């Protein structure tokens, strides 16, 4: 989590890269869920989405950490 990505000389904290990547993944998953009709069965779609996004960010950073060690 402390590392930085070098993007042509601009240093980005790895957290922001993870967050962006997770957001792309998140959008794909929500559109998939919407298509298979999951949302009508969810009590609070916004809360569900927030939790999903946090899970994705957490999961990605955990995977990265695990890969580095």
């Amino acid at each position, binding site marked *: 989590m402390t590392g930085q990505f070098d993007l042509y000389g601009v240093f980005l904290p790895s957290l922001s890269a993870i967050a962006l990547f997770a957001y792309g993944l998140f959008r794909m998953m929500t559109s998939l869920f919407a298509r298979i009709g999951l*949302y*009508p069965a969810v009590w*609070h*779609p*916004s*809360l569900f989405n*927030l939790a999903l996004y946090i899970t994705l960010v957490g999961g990605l950073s955990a995977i990265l950490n695990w890969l580095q060690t």
Partner: protein
Amino acid sequence: MSARPAVTTGNVLFSLKTFLAAMLAYYIAVRFDLPRPFWAVASVYIVAHPLSGAISSKSVYRLLGTLIGGAVTIILVPNLVNEPILLSAAIIAWVSGCTFISLLDRTPRSYVPLLGGYTVLLAGLPLVTAPANTFDTVVARVEEIGLAIVCASIVSHVVLPVHVGAILLGRIDAWIARAQALLMATATAEQDEPRSRAERYALAADAADLRSFTTHLQYDGSRYRHALTLVRSLQHRMVSFLPLLSEIEDLRRALSRLDSSQAKQAISVIEALGSSSTSESGILTAETDLPASFEASRSWESLLLANVARNMRDVVEVSSACQSLRDGLKKDSAARAARRIASPDPVPRPHRDIGMASLSALTVAICLATSTFFWIASGWTDGMTFAQISGVLCCLLATMDDPVPTMRKFAEVTSGSVLAAFVYAFAILPVIGDFMPLVAALGLFLIPAGICLAVPSLAIVGMGLCINFPLLLALQSHQNSDFTTFANSSVATVLAMVWTIVVCSIFRSVKAETNARRLFSVVQRRVVAIASGGHIDPHVTRHRVIDMAGLFAARAAKISPNSETAEADLIRDLRTGLNIKAMQELSEEASMLSRLKAESIFPALEILYRLAPAERGEALRDTLKLLDNLILSSADATATDPDTALFVRAAALRVCLAPEADPPASIIPPPKRNAA
């Protein structure tokens, strides 16, 4: 002040949610060590809105605008910092240009250029003393605003969300019910004209408001989010009710003047339409046997009846289209339904008032030029705050006819928040060392102030308190309770407001009546353009004029009764224009004689609509003479089908031009009133 209580569960909940979001943003900003955490708090309060979709849309626009403004700051400031005059000129040009663009767009989207403009003021001006920090400051501002809007959006979507979708649909239903009620009233009894006209204006204003409200829908979390095209095409149909309603009223009046058995029968059919407006099938059969039974003689009466039949067919068509779109929205698969009933033609862009936008942009430029000049000339460090606040205030209130009363109120409230900030900065914050007590202390002020933000009539008070308070405190967060700094910036803030009031009252304030007259003359010019045979799309005309009628409605209440626009009926003018257009198209196919007669009318109409309403008497009589000449020729049996259609339109036009005139006869009686 409103009669309703300000402290309702909904408002308190809204205030608590906003406070929660603000404190979340503040906590994260402090944890990440951002340079100006109070910016995030103020930003949360700037985007605050009771509806979650509205917050998201405003947030997206705010972020976009900040990014644009930040980019321009990075371009302008380091390059021009050694030439203060040139830099000021560039900033003034940019800010007023942005204000101009944002005023042309009356939807919430206008926030993007507006913010792009004044971000340069807020982020750029402090940098003139330290241009090396440009990039860092801009990044910090974007970060803080980004953080604030993420917090505001998440909290509003997750904690007890209030969705735009359901409220929008409720408002659409209310609009339709109101239009139906007006239809019923118009159809069943003679109406008091000014009252029903005011009602139509009110509906037009509501429709315009609904359209801009719909912008929020695509950012909403509810299932209606995907139904945007459906809602848009529903609104599209809704507005075509208004000219029809106005036409029914005039036709009814014209028929009751005739006093024949057929006319009475037709009136009873109209009444049946009014009372059975909920069950469509009944009307359809009632109106279809109308034209058939009166086709035999082509008199003025039968032309009127043909118009009644056409009008009712249109009413039924529009109301059933609205009904089926509304049903489509009710279903779960709104997105699929939207694809099926996709809007047939795009909604034309609404009216743009370039004159007023230029005036506002000019005022912003004057205000900024004077305040920056003062800053440069006096060398007062806080002249910067003076320039910033006066510019921002000018931009924010640029949409109003007369911003001065609002500004005065804002200035008063700001003085109040200066006082509160003073107490906080020197009595409360110095003894607080921890985060939680700070939150509690801030909540003591921000939560009650946030309740004001939710009440429309107190919104300006809420804004003044909630937005200025963190900003005034923010200046304290670095300088450790330095009284001189605080006094300087407070004096600059209040002075800036006073100066903005002075500048705006000199250059910007226009009476509601002036704007009403401008709208009126735009509509008249449009009718002239149609009559002179310009290529004008009737569809675009309909939408734009109804849009203008909505703008007119907001001013109609303030027009003095003896003004020339007090009697103006823009929707009737719209019908005139549409009828002229239809006649022009029909006369292409009509027989030579009718065509010549019809074409002699258009120049007369052009002259008529170039005149001011008070001077129209003579021209109106001439036009009516020509029009009656055409209408009376319908008695000839040689007329072909296109001819008949032309006569019907001509009759409709005559009803528009002179709704109170007697029916045409060989000897033309003078019209009783100069109605147009």
